[in-house]
């Protein structure tokens, strides 16, 4: 193979994408040509340096503020929430069978609690909570508030969360420090969401939407804890 042809094929040669015949030809030429060997060395050095560049470069800290200001609320997704707050964990992936069983039990227990509360409230009050707009609910003092309806379920959530936190505490030292840090960061975010939703619901106890948001926040916390326990 000629000197010029070797240089022409050198890119593909170092990438290992040449057909066998051309590869043999380039290799043979490299054995005989000091200049082309030097070219090959330099090229490989450049590629090694490129591959070793840091994968991340931190942007200026204020960049997020500009992004946040441009984010449109996505209320359409929230509007898909069911009429009554969903109680219990959502379907999860990569969870051992025994965790799925535990989740099913939790779902049965919490659903039963909600059913019981609805039964106690009576059909008229349920209809009032489910169908009346918030403004009309506020004008009907006899109707049960969304906050009051959610209270028993919240106790169940807190019990389930307490159990999972206890289980997590038993094998926390087996988790990688980075995983623990990520877990804690996520829990912090979720706890903040719970706190804010709880405060908003207390201020507007007839808001079914806020009750749903609070329920979703608890769901999220249960989900994170279950996943962490299964790691």
């Amino acid at each position: 193979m000629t000197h010029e042809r070797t240089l022409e094929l050198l890119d593909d040669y170092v990438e290992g994408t040449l057909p066998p015949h051309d590869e043999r030809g380039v290799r043979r030429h490299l054995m005989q040509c000091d200049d082309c060997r030097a070219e090959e060395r330099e090229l490989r050095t450049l590629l090694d340096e490129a591959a070793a560049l840091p994968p991340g470069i931190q942007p200026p800290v204020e960049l997020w503020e500009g992004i946040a200001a441009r984010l449109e609320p996505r209320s359409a997704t929230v509007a898909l929430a069911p009429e009554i707050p969903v109680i219990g964990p959502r379907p999860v992936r990569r969870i051992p069978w025994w965790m799925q069983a535990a989740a099913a039990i939790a779902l049965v227990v919490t659903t039963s609690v909600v059913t019981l509360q609805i039964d106690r409230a009576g059909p008229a009050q349920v209809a009032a909570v489910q169908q009346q707009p918030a403004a009309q609910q506020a004008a009907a003092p006899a109707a049960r508030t969304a906050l009051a309806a959610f209270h028993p379920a919240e106790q169940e959530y807190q019990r389930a969360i307490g159990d999972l936190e206890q289980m997590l505490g038993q094998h926390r030292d087996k988790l990688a420090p980075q995983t623990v840090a990520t877990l804690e960061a996520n829990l912090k975010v979720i706890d903040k969401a719970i706190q804010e939703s709880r405060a908003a619901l207390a201020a507007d106890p007839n808001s079914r939407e806020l009750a749903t948001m609070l329920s979703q926040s608890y769901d999220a916390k249960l989900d994170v804890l279950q996943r962490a326990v299964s790691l």
Partner: protein
Amino acid sequence: MATMLAENPPAVQGTAVADLTVRRAQEGDATAFEQLYRDNAGRIYALCLRMSGDSIKAQELTQDVFVRAWEKLGTFQGGSAFSTWLHRLAVNVVLGDRRSEGVRVHRIYCTDEPEKFDRPARESDPGTVMDLERAIGQLPPGARAVFVLHDVEGYRHEEIATMQGTAVGTCKAQLHRARRLLREALGR
């Protein structure tokens, strides 16, 4: 889209906790989305900076990427890691921005004779030692994009050609030119 993903895509953040954060962001939780930003901003900004060669432009592009990601989060179905999906979105945003810059860039991408569009000789002192990042920043735009995507990010020629709407031969020619210019700039 799956066929267009790199064989060795960007680092995967495939933890269950990250999955949950994505899901919450999909439900409209801006706090969760901010967490996704914190987890991925460095990699996306690095891509935008290297592809654009301009820190101000890179900040604009990074903002565009995350705003677009927020708008399109509903289409992410978990077929790949979120970080991979986001990275691919970022490449599309950057390339789309370059296309919109006008005819000159379009000609660079589509020509089979990239030498025609070489920049004039640079003014920098040839004896100055330049690090690789700076040298990449001084490449012509077309060559820089291909070098970053192929040699830094690990995309294949076929994928880059598809993303740019060019021939594989054009992509290879741009890469060859980029490598040659970089070695010259680095004094090798």
